[in-house]
């Protein structure tokens, strides 16, 4: 399998609590550790899921991967390119290979652009298609691909003339039109209604497998991740606490946090009551973290060692890593 994305010991700290005359924010100790040592790889044709509560660093990871933030330290490779420090020209080439689908299709599309203008923009920037007719042909093909049939009905529409599901399909078309090798989808269906959501999910699934794309899918909803992703990583306060094949992560739930997260998902079956015995308290912040396991204050299986020493990732099964002192 060919690695498209390689992330190694990636860290992103944001300075916090810094005022105009106080430079103590320079000190790394006082930083908000949004992403604190994350490593994973995504192969060609693989969909990688990132799950966790809000504030755990999912979106920061995505933005780092897109080159929208510069990492504090760590290695970021995409399609053989080191993207942690790109110059303008290289950045343009990288953008062609890596595209992002945002959460809210009501905000990510320019309200004054017709569909064809939205989709033509990337073609112009990257010099694809010689004449306008050729460009229009490419646009029509991609519209068909994302299930907006017949494309003639959509090319001249404005975003406000379409439903949420159709808008998100346009956003997906915009991401796919440059034929990228890697896409990131950050909560792409959380703004959509249930009956529409399934269609967009199916489209994403089809589009990524047909094009053999490496993709990163971010969601706080594990049931969606289960539906789409081959591999899953569970994030907690800037660290990946468990990663492995999706079905295994869900069935075995090695890490106490994974267990708590899964037990908290409400089931449609009224007899499967939600269970909260696996977790206590609320998310702590990640500013004053020095030593010990981050999940320690909320963990029901915490031991003495957890308070003092940060756990190292342990391979509990082949390609299934857990960061917890319970496993040695």
């Amino acid at each position, binding site marked *: 399998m060919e690695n498209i994305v390689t992330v190694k010991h990636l860290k992103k700290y944001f300075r916090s609590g810094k005022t105009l005359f106080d430079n103590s924010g320079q000190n790394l100790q006082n930083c908000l550790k949004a992403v604190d040592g994350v490593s994973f790889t995504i192969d060609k044709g693989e969909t990688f899921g990132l799950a966790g*509560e*809000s504030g755990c660093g999912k979106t920061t990871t995505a933005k780092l991967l897109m080159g929208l933030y510069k990492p504090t330290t760590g290695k970021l490779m995409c399609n053989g390119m080191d993207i942690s420090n790109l110059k303008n020209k290289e950045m343009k080439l990288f953008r062609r290979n890596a595209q992002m689908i945002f959460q809210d299709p009501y905000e990510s599309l320019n309200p004054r652009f017709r569909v064809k203008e939205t989709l033509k923009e990337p073609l112009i920037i990257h010099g694809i298609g010689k004449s306008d007719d050729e460009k229009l042909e490419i646009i029509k093909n991609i519209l068909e691909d994302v299930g907006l049939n017949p494309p003639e009905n959509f090319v001249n529409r404005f975003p406000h003339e379409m*439903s949420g*599901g159709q808008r998100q399909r346009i956003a997906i078309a915009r991401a796919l039109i440059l034929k990228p090798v890697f896409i990131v989808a950050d909560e792409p269906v959380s703004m959509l*209604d*249930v*009956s*529409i*959501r*399934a*269609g*967009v*999910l*199916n489209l994403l699934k089809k589009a990524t497998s047909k094009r053999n794309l490496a993709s990163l899918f971010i969601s*706080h*909803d*594990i*049931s*969606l991740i*289960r*539906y789409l992703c081959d591999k899953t990583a569970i994030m907690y306060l800037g660290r990946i606490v468990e990663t492995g094949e999706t*079905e295994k992560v*869900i069935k075995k739930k090695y890490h106490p946090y994974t267990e*708590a*997260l*899964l*037990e*908290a*998902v*409400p*089931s*449609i*079956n*009224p007899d*499967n*009551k*939600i269970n*909260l015995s696996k*977790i206590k308290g*609320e*998310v702590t912040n990640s500013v004053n973290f020095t030593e010990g396991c981050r999940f320690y204050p909320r963990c029901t299986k915490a031991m003495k060692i957890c308070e003092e020493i940060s756990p190292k990732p342990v391979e509990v099964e082949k390609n299934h890593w857990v960061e917890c002192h319970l496993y040695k």
Partner: protein
Amino acid sequence: MLDIKNLKIYYNISEGCVKAVDNVSFQLHRGDILGIVGESGCGKTTLIKSLLKILPSNGYIHGGTANYKGEDIFKMDYSRIQKLRWKEISIISQSAMNALDPVYRVGDQIVEAITEHEKIKKEKAFKKAEKLFDLVGVNRRRLKDYPHQYSGGMKQRAVIAMALALNPEIIIADEPTTALDVIVQAQILQRINELLENYRGSMIMVTHDISVIAQTCNKVAVMYGGKIVEFGDKRRIVARPCHPYTLGLKNAFPSITGEKKSLISIPGNPPDLLVPPRGCIFAPRCPFVKEICRNKSPLPEKVEEGYVLCHRLGEVEKLRLYAEKEKTWLRSSI
């Protein structure tokens, strides 16, 4: 306790008249926990807003009655409504983040709600607020804090505490957990369940998430395009849904337990309530549509304790089997 009959709520907009709620009837008994489920724009929020007479200025009640203990809410005058709000019917509003006033301490806001309706001293009201915070599981000391010092889950709990403050007969919760994370959502749902065990009144919970309803309610109303298309006992609706829309909704929900099934979406888009379809409201998207569905609105037919609005209710066993197949939903009627 609450008996709603043929309720119609319309909005006047420049293009015409939007039939946001169209001919809705249901009954709420003491102790009932009713879940209203539906997509955005189906009229669920409009419906509950009308019960407190807090509709936007261009919305009006076109017809129907809402009998609360023998009194029609829509005929009450302002001073009576003022007494009704909070004291008898209270609301946990959507996005608690915005429901609290940012420039007042949370404790003061709760005290204000109490003293507005009950003639008691501030100190006594504050004691009451402390008890309420114990009940919803927030530290009493936090009463002196401002909303921005709270986390999302805590704000939601504070709003729930406020809704419980005057022991209302009916609590209305509009998407109480939508903006929250899974674990916080689970904590809130569990807390609501615990509170309901010791509570004599009833509750209406509005959400778009069937699984949230499955965890809390005992009755369900499925809304689509301003109508309640299916109403009944929760267990019956989850196990044996009858309306094609409910069948479709069930297909669209991914699960983390059991076998991995492919999701099936309902083709098409929700109806334009400015010009609703002539016959059954769901007909343009329904895979089981027949000639009669396009021409005549179905009337409610009794199913066990509830009712269903569908012309093909008689064949429901057969349709339920068809609905499980993906092919069914890819156009062409059966």
